């Protein structure tokens, strides 16, 4: 049974859905929505590389690049999330009580200003 037209149809379908995911990258209202879209596009590209290998009958040529791609997609997403956390820290936020997510509590890292250090010292002493 010749499965090649089936795989070609699968690849085109995945590409079309990736195009729909690109909407979230382009129009995500926040930066972090774009990071989400980047993660999904990266994961689906690994599937597409394997499908290209299957269509051409030479999966052993593409298998190394698939693993490397998956690894690097993971690193990019985590780096973007961590950099975003770093950039988020010193920015003062607008208090809108009904809309803003509840504060993370005392587990959130304190900013290293002298006032914050004095606060933490004061909290520690019983």
């Amino acid at each position: 049974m010749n499965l090649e037209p089936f795989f070609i149809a699968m690849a085109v379908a995945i590409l079309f859905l990736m195009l729909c995911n690109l909407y979230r990258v382009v129009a995500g209202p926040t930066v972090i929505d774009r990071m989400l879209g980047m993660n999904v596009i990266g994961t689906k590209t690994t599937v597409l590389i394997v499908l290209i290998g299957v269509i051409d009958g030479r999966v052993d040529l593409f298998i190394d690049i698939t693993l490397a791609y998956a690894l690097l997609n993971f690193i990019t997403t985590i780096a973007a999330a961590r950099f975003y956390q770093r950039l988020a820290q010193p920015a003062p936020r607008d208090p809108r009580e009904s809309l803003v997510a509840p504060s993370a509590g005392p587990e959130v890292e304190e900013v290293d200003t002298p006032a914050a250090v004095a606060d933490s010292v004061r909290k520690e002493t019983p």
Partner: protein
Amino acid sequence: MILDILVILAMLTGLLFFVATTVGIIRFPDFYSRVHAAGKGDTLSTTLFLGGAILFLLRDFGTDTLLTAGKLLLIVFYIFIASPTATHAIIDAGYEFRVPYWTRSKKDNSTKGDEESMDNGFYPEDLKG
């Protein structure tokens, strides 16, 4: 023959989950729900697609195809670990940055697009960069 049926079934199920993921990412109103859609649906659909590719490779049973199938299994296992971890990192960043929740109030339940609601004050200024 039956292996072909299994391959087609696995890939079609993977495609179905990916359609669900895409619809979720586009249509959900809030960042947190989109991360749910992306993290879970994406991982499962990738696992099913690559599982179908492994089954397709095992049609001609030889030593090098067995080696390639083994490497693909390693990739499946790796994506099973790494993709939910990346989702966790994203949602951790969003939570610490206090991305606002979506609530079913009159202000947010309008039919306007995301850009208008962005300027309404729904998202703080420094989230948009």
